[in-house]
């Protein structure tokens, strides 16, 4: 994603204002670990990721876990120095990039350092993203043994020509087996899908959904393809080599996804996420606790190049490139590139923006007087649930989920 250019400079010592840790004991604390390595860069991808094994100055995929562990210790010292109470981790999430480009033992090593540094709750959710082609049963077992509880596979599509357009190299036939291995290893499983790829028909999309459902994961995420500026795909689109994204097509596919997933027992709980009851756990228990922490404005520390963090209304983001990032971490100074302290109005803005995405919704009581009168209109237009509104919550309808940004714009306060 593009770097945020504005924001204040972050101090070298990383210290947070006292306001950031006020009331911290009431909030969950999570850890995100970014692994900025991939075997190839997909055409649509604008994530902060690198395909070279060596980036120079001793920065490499091989050595990366030690630098991540170094930042974990740095995080702990900053929080202590700022006066934060000690909080055991509620969730940990390894994302990328492709975290499974690291040896399973290295991932476990980072998790172990995190556990030893902060502690971890007994019910903590520990997830890693994985490429279906680059994990073995042994890897999955190592992760499970090392404390991981959940794995999220980037399946994207079951249709070869769609995967090809996305530059995905994995063999779609490998997804079923790896899901079974993960289950065998005792891991909870999520599968990621992408819809609206140029050239994908509605039938192609339904096929992908059916196959994902057939693997019986506890959790499925379905994202519309977003073509960001600066990606290979955006350039190909500009040249007319592949057709433009059609938002109507994406809307139709979202509706198909919600219908098919619903029939298969999956319940939506966030715009792009569905879970089902399985393995003795309810559908709600199989939601991604880590992602819910984002939408409920909990505290989290993002480890790694370009990773974002949020603690008590202060957001910051690390240097994007692994080399300057690593240099900062090894020098014991903050790798942050910039940060922003959110005022009360902005925090409310974000709360509205994030909580309306979820099935639990947003309490109407937090809206300002001037925006509260919009609620009746939104119910009338079929964008939010009437029953929930009467009970005091803003909860999007299916139509409202597709027009979620329009709803948010009507509910957020006008910032001065």
């Amino acid at each position, binding site marked *: *994603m*593009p770097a*945020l250019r504005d*924001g204040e400079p972050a101090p070298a010592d990383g210290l947070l204002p006292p306001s950031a840790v006020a009331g911290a004991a009431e909030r969950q604390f999570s850890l*995100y670990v970014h692994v900025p390595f991939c075997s190839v860069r997909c055409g649509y991808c604008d994530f902060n990721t690198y395909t070279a094994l060596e980036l120079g100055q001793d920065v490499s995929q091989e050595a990366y876990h030690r630098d991540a562990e170094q930042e974990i210790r740095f995080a702990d010292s900053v929080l202590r120095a700022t006066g934060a109470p000690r909080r055991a981790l509620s969730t940990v999430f390894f994302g990328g990039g492709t975290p499974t480009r690291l040896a399973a033992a290295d991932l476990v090593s980072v998790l172990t350092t995190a556990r030893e540094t902060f502690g971890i709750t007994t019910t903590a959710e520990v997830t890693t993203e994985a490429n279906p082609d680059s994990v073995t049963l042994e890897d999955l077992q190592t992760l499970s043994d090392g404390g991981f509880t959940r794995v999220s596979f980037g399946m994207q599509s079951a249709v070869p020509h769609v995967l090809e357009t996305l530059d995905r190299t994995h063999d779609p036939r490998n997804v079923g087996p790896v899901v079974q291995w993960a289950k065998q290893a005792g891991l909870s499983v999520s599968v990621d899908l992408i819809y609206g790829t140029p050239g994908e028909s509605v039938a192609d999309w339904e096929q992908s959904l059916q196959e994902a459902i057939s693997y019986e994961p506890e959790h499925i995420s*379905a*994202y*519309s393809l*977003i073509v960001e500026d600066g990606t290979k795909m955006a350039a190909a689109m500009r040249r007319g080599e592949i057709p433009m994204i059609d*938002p*109507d097509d*994406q*809307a*139709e596919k*979202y509706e198909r996804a919600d219908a098919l997933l619903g029939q298969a027992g999956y319940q939506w709980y966030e*715009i*792009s996420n569905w879970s089902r009851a399985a393995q003795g756990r309810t559908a709600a228990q199989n939601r991604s606790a880590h*992602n819910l922490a*984002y*939408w409920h404005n909990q505290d*989290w520390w*993002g480890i790694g190049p*370009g*990773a*974002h*963090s*949020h603690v008590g209304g202060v*957001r910051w*983001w690390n240097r994007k490139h692994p080399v300057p990032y690593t240099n900062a971490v090894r020098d014991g100074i903050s790798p942050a590139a910039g940060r*922003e302290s959110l005022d009360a109005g*902005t925090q409310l*803005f*974000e709360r509205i*923006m*994030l909580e309306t*995405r979820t099935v639990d919704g947003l309490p109407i009581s937090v809206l300002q007087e001037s925006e509260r009168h919009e609620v009746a209109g939104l119910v009338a*237009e079929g*964008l939010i649930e009437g029953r929930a509104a009467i009970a005091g919550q803003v909860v999007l309808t299916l139509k409202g*989920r*597709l*027009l*979620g*940004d*329009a709803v*948010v*714009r009507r509910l*957020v306060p*006008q*910032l001065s």
Partner: protein
Amino acid sequence: MSPQAVVPPVPASTDPSLLRSFCIIAHIDHGKSTLADRMLQATGVVTPREMKAQYLDRMDIERERGITIKSQAVRMPWGMGGTDYALNMIDTPGHVDFTYEVSRSLAACEGALLLVDAAQGIEAQTLANLYLAMENDLTIIPVLNKIDLPAAQPEKYAEELGNLIGEDPDRVLRVSGKTGEGVEALLDRIVEEIPAPVGNAGEASRAMIFDSVFDTYRGVVTYVRVVDGDLKPRERIKMMSTGAEHELLEIGVISPEPKPTKGLGVGEVGYLITGVKDVRQSRVGDTVTAAHKGATEELGGYEDPKPMVFSGLFPIDGSDYPALRDALEKLQLNDAALVWEPETSAALGFGFRCGFLGLLHLEITRERLEREFDLALISTAPSVSYDVTLEDGTETVVTNPSEFPEGKIKEIREPMVSATVLAPSEFVGAIMELCQSKRGQLGGMDYLSEDRVELRYRLPLAEIVLDFFDQLKSRTKGYASLDWKAEGQEAADLVKVDLLLQGERVDAFSAITHKDKAYSYGVMMAGKLKDLIPRQQFEVPIQAAIGSRIIARENIRAMRKDVLSKCYGGDISRKRKLLEKQKEGKKRMKMVGRVEVPQEAFVAALSSDSSGEKKK
């Protein structure tokens, strides 16, 4: 030996036989201002060090566009044959919108320099002003400028000028405003050939106002040419058209800065300051006389300025309405031709219906409002003034399409112009085709030279004010030039076309067009709006209609998806900023019924350039 005057004649006591008053007739970029600068230097009025390029064009816009909007008069001493003369150079506006001001400037002179670019030849505008000068019996001195240019063809154009005014081509002067070559010879020619003014010093004073400008510090500065008698400081004067009396606080000449004098005598040109604050109290063409024992008969030729083109000006930010009113009032101090009244548009809010002399006047006014007063404006498509007679005999004047009467119409009369187009003969076909498509009637055609043609057309003004000039230029590779003047009215089969969004009429887009063009206007606007208005949460039909009859339709499909599917930790700040920006953007949306229309859509839909269509 310097030909500069040794003892310059003193204002108020200069014998009229030593005076020469002249103006320069030239097309926009033929170098009039540069030549004027050279003359200021050659006569010693301005030292080279003081020289600001194009000294006489004061306003920024004038300097940038290289055109003169408001004229001024400079007194320059010039010695010849042992006698010192005083030359009055009256700088005239160079554009079709300001024909009346030109005519008054000409009336203040005995001679005119016909200045033509030696690389381009004469243009239609110059031709029109030349006719005007000849009508005023001015002595014409033909001058080819820019002879230093490699592309100059002095022989060819001297021939053309000579033929035009019945003069031996060898008598056409050749100068370069850039290098100064030929400028002294030109000054000598002015003294030799232009007649001295004739007036009666003993009679009641009469002076003609040929320009009137507002100065922030001095109030209105009025430029006059004394015809009879004289004017003195502290004297009470009377404006003969209104009868208003003022005290002459200051009187003087410009040389090139204002210099107070003991008065102005017969034939002299200078300025008056009376302390009035509004140029409408000191109108171009009016006669100034003494309040006590003044003249009883006005000098001829005064006309009220008559607006020809109308457009609604609306502030993009509605809260700028009072600022726009203030700004218009300030501009009016300096522009007697600018008229306006408040207008309310359902789509654009509060604004002003403004009347202009022509399109350039409109553009300059708008640009000054935006630049000097920092206002962001939307202007509606330019319209003209229609006389409408209803079946029941009621007559109304319609300058705004939204005021077009609903009842049964017996007749609509529209303003006509007589237009002159000059162009290389190879473009005759293209020009005729264009004029035909604009409902023009060919009045005549003459060859100025072997390869240059003058075409005369009678055209509806409404067709000229839209994009006629742009189209003329593009069809003739920029070679054609155009001049027009108002010439009566004609009945025509005109209708009003409305644009409707979800059944709601958008008044800003209504237009009065010829019946044969209503359909294409409707289709064009409906298509434009379809591209410019973003999709809404519901379907938005766009219709073009004459009365209740729909002539074109388009449909903006409902937006089905407006949500970011991924919003995790690293997306939050960026996503929030995007939503903030979108929320902020909504403030600038205008509501037409339930439809949100961005300001940019109004601006783009109303902009006359057709680039929006080309992009498709």
